[in-house]
């Protein structure tokens, strides 16, 4: 990947296909997300230090290479089961986590590798988990779909669509009652917005003004069923109006736009003003899971989205603003590649769990051997 070949500009280009404008009740700051005029610096450049921006790019790259490594490992038979890759969605995960501290919580989804890395997870322990090893984040008990890093505030991916949303509301209730000053970001996909848990959760967070940022990563398909075929509203952010909270739709492949929308929502949450709904429009380049034969979308559509690569776009932005040189990017690529290779090696060398410890952690205090 080279940043000099970057032609597509962050900022003034058209929003994602099929999506226009922003949500009805958006706050003014968020309304401009992704629509900065050519004369203005993008939010990210204005708002964050070069170090933060370079780190954001490095994390996006780390997510990409991690998932490519996971895919390769799967092909080699090192990974059991299935996995859901978020390649193409990196700006959404990193942009949303940019301002979160380790004390702030997230709840994630079955497509949660990016969120986990964006929140600060160690890729060695992630690979170890995928390989089912004792050194993995879940001691090999959870795998890709339950990857979590509680010390960094990631309460976990979730195998159930919409499963993490009410949990995020509960974590926000804790934050409010215990006065921790922390916020909770709940990631979910477009498929989750037709689950009851989504509606119940947004309503409760709104009536109690809980510090939650609801982020719908709209990648256009719930497995094979498109948003157009499954969802009555024109855009997911329209649903915010039903729960009297700000709703905004942003270009989820534009890190600056995601970060800007989240910045406003996080400030609002920390100020005790309640939740926000952000629809981050993006696209998964890969299939839903390893069994997907891509019968529901065209190669042209996929190619059009690959051309909107969020990493190339953000790298281009940093280059344009003199924040990252060609050599700096090349060095970053090398470092990330080395980090991934070391992580895979660590995971391969790690021991498997002891089958005698099968019932470990079913209960906190192991008082029973059987039901």
């Amino acid at each position: 990947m080279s940043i000099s070949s970057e032609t597509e500009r962050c900022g003034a280009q058209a929003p994602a296909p099929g999506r226009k404008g922003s949500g009805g009740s958006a706050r003014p700051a968020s309304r401009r997300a992704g629509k900065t005029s050519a004369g203005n610096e993008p939010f990210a450049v204005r708002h964050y230090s070069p170090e933060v921006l370079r780190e954001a790019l490095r994390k996006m790259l780390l997510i990409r290479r991690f998932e490519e490594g996971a895919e390769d490992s799967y092909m080699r038979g090192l990974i059991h089961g299935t996995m859901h890759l978020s390649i193409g969605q990196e700006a959404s995960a990193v942009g949303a986590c940019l301002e979160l501290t380790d004390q702030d919580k997230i709840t994630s989804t079955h497509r949660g590798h990016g969120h986990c890395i964006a929140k600060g997870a160690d890729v060695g322990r992630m690979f170890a988990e995928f390989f089912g090893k004792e050194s993995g984040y879940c001691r090999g008990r959870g795998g890709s779909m339950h990857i979590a890093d509680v010390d960094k505030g990631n309460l976990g991916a979730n195998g159930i669509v919409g499963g993490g949303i009410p949990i995020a509301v509960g974590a926000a209730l804790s934050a409010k009652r215990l006065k921790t000053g922390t916020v909770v970001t709940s990631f979910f996909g477009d498929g989750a917005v037709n689950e009851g848990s989504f509606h119940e959760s947004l309503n409760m967070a709104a009536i109690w003004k809980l510090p939650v940022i609801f982020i719908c990563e709209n990648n256009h398909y719930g497995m094979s069923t498109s948003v157009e075929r499954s969802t009555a509203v024109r855009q997911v952010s329209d649903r915010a109006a039903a729960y009297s909270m700000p709703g905004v739709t942003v270009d989820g492949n534009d890190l600056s736009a995601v970060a800007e929308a989240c910045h406003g929502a996080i400030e609002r949450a920390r100020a005790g003003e309640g939740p926000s709904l952000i629809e981050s429009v993006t696209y998964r380049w890969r299939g839903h899971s390893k069994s997907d034969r891509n019968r529901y979308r065209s190669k042209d559509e996929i190619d059009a989205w690959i051309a909107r690569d969020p990493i190339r776009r953000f790298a281009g932005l940093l280059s344009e603003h003199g924040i990252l040189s060609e050599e700096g990017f090349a060095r970053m690529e090398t470092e990330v590649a080395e980090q991934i290779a070391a992580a895979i090696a660590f995971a391969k060398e790690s021991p498997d769990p002891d089958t005698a410890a099968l019932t470990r952690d079913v209960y906190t205090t192991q008082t029973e051997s059987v039901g």
Partner: protein
Amino acid sequence: MTAPAAVLDSPLRELSYAEAIRDALAIALAEDERVVLMGEDIGVYGGAFQVSGDLVHRFGEERVIDTPISELGGAGMAVGAALTGLRPIYEFQFSDFATLAMEQIVNQAAKLRFMLGGAVSVPLVMRFPAGSGTGAAAQHSQSLEAWFGHVPGLKVVQAATPYDAKGLLLAALDDPDPVMLFEHKLLYKTKGPVPEGRYTVPIGKAEVCRTGSNVTIVATAIMVHRALEAAEVLAQEGIDAEVIDLRTVRPMDRETVVASVAKTSRLVVAYEGVRTLGIGAEVSASIVESEAFDYLDAPIVRLGGAEAPIPYNPELEKAAVPQVADILSAVRGVVRGTR
């Protein structure tokens, strides 16, 4: 019992089962700021069965939280709160409504600790008003405790007396894992001695309520009272029944049951949930898989709910779950071999 001496010495008041639970909730709220109650109409209304009563006035709306009618969201919120430092006690208005929240209970609360390799605990207490006998028909009268007992990661408790209702609730709050408390609705107004102050009744421990030598009756919740009533009648007939209150469905206290049957050689299990694939089968299995099998002098009898939804008509409703007469008949059968 793990009641401190000071508690045991305190005057024994007669409290109803509902009052005993409220007493436990008040103690929990007073001694731990992290405790919050959540549920539908538990605030000024006082709860559908008046269990929370006046607690909202004593502890405020921030800690006695009226939720919208959103069982899935409410249960999930309780899970999330438990994961992050609160000690939520979530009340389902009727246990039947847990059907709307099974995702959060079964997939999340029960499994999070395991799925995350022990990185978290879910110290969650859920209360379920359960059982028939109120004329509320099929969607407000079920006994679904065995469903929950089938899920590793959950603990499932059924108190039969006000004393146990209070002590088991406080034990559930001390427990780091999700504990499901099934409360039979017909028991809410029953009275019994309840000490003041904090004490706990251990989860996972059955109680021998009446010792006997001819037959063991293992019962849960309201069936404990029916079994004790039957035992008095049987005593007149020269049948000495031992009555065991299982108290916890999961983890089940098999040792107490096995020891009893090894002594009496006969077993009747009485429970209100549907007879098939239920608590009776599990208790029976504890016997046939143990040394007590060799002592059995008669086939085991399971007395459970009918293979039908709970009906509305009062006579049909009674017929749908074991009554004292059913226990009498079953015990006479296993003791005299007339069944």
